[in-house]
């Protein structure tokens, strides 16, 4: 049998050495960098992390740089790609090439390749030190020509993600977070095309960001949305019922494959019974078995 303990220790040493030699909190890092601009787009971040439908995140800035990304430049846009709700390889590549052209229009040399084993675009440009303005242009060009929903759509086309199921899981997780933390984040509704209104996006982002993603992640785990966890969740649920003699209901699922309201209620009741003690014991027992 492979000595996993030894292999992990050795691999961890390799990481510590590699990263330790390379990453030092000095002039190359945040606190002492001459001037570094970090962009965190809440709506995009939420979309990428939790999924959200084929909406286009239009972000019109009020600063000067926004005007350099002009409309009507003849390049394929995110809206055009998403028009029929599907993203083809040709469209995805055209969008990525449009990002390069868009950057060129702002005087920034960049290239794109598709060598990534996951078949997503990788952009690069020579290191020029113009990080602040380049970041700004890059983000805007991405939004215009290869917005997050396009990346999601392409991931769906490649079978890396099931958007319909993603929507179902998003709604179920959202509801779970609201109930768990006792906060009304607003209404989350997907339209017929699978899109989210800006209000819905804000509601979803608020739930996702709440308490540093903790409730969202825990709900995803509890609801069995993480890979390989569904069967485990059902087995642990049955174990908790069996060992406590309680009837928490049934783990029932909706059309999307996500737990429906009754299923979520049953799961929360079982997982929260007597703290998490029965749940943790069952989880451990099933592993040992």
């Amino acid at each position: 049998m492979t000595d996993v303990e030894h292999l992990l220790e050795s691999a961890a040493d390799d990481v510590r050495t590699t990263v330790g030699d390379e990453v030092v909190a000095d002039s190359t890092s945040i606190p002492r960098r001459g001037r570094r601009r970090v962009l965190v787009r809440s709506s995009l971040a939420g979309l990428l992390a939790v999924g959200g439908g084929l909406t286009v995140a239009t972000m019109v800035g009020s600063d000067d740089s926004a005007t350099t990304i002009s409309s009507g430049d003849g390049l394929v846009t995110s809206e055009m790609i998403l028009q029929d709700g599907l993203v083809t390889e040709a469209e995805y590549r055209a969008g990525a090439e449009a990002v390069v052209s868009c950057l060129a229009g702002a005087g920034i040399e960049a290239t794109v390749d598709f060598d990534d084993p996951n078949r997503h675009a990788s952009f690069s440009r020579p290191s020029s030190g113009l990080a602040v303005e380049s970041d700004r242009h890059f983000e805007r060009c991405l939004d215009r020509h290869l917005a997050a929903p396009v990346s999601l759509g392409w991931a769906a086309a490649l079978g890396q993600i099931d958007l319909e199921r993603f929507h179902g899981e998003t709604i179920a997780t959202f509801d779970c977070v609201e109930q768990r933390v006792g906060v009304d984040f607003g209404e989350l509704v997907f339209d017929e095309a699978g899109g989210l209104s800006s209000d819905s996006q804000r509601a979803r982002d608020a739930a996702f960001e709440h308490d540093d993603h903790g409730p969202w992640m825990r709900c995803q785990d509890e609801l069995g949305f993480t890979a390989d966890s569904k069967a485990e969740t059902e087995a642990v649920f049955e174990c908790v019922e069996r060992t406590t003699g309680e009837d928490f209901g049934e783990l029932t699922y909706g059309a999307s494959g996500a737990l429906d309201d009754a299923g979520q209620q049953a799961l929360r009741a079982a997982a929260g019974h007597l703290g998490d003690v029965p749940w943790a014991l069952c989880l451990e027992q099933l592993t040992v078995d």
Partner: protein
Amino acid sequence: MVAPMEVTVSQADGEITAERSDSGAEPPEGYESFYRRELGPVVGLAYVLSGSRTGAEDLAQEGFLAAYRRWDRISGYDDPGAWVRRVVANRATSLLRRRQAEVRALAKLGRSAHQLPELSTESELIWREVRRLPRRQAQVIALRYVDGSPIAQVARILECSENTVKTHLLRAKQTLAERLSSEEGR
């Protein structure tokens, strides 16, 4: 002497922007020493969980930026490092999130200049198998081995019981043993 740092956070059109410079107000007390101490381990954590040589530092930076913006609150925690590790562990195991970090890093920094070095072939194989594990199991392995966190600390970071951590650890190692044995047999 460390140069003072200024951070300005603004929000418009759904976009949150944090801007730092080397002039202006002093950083919140304690943040810089915290950052210096924790940066390496947190990048290592992001590296093995994301598998991205280009995106790992960006993922870690996102976590530290989030901590900085909440530093008044987080600095009062018993272990602010646990908070950053939780944020980064969660973000690094989100497929699309880490891809975006990678794309951003590539575009911003230029591919060749800022990639972390490659690990040995054997290490790469092991971490690739770790990333194939269910998310929680992968996080537990990375925190336990790369970060060197004891079980109780891993439980605090992931906000679960120590028993749950032990279970994830045991199950993860069983799976890894099976998969790595079959790799060896090839």
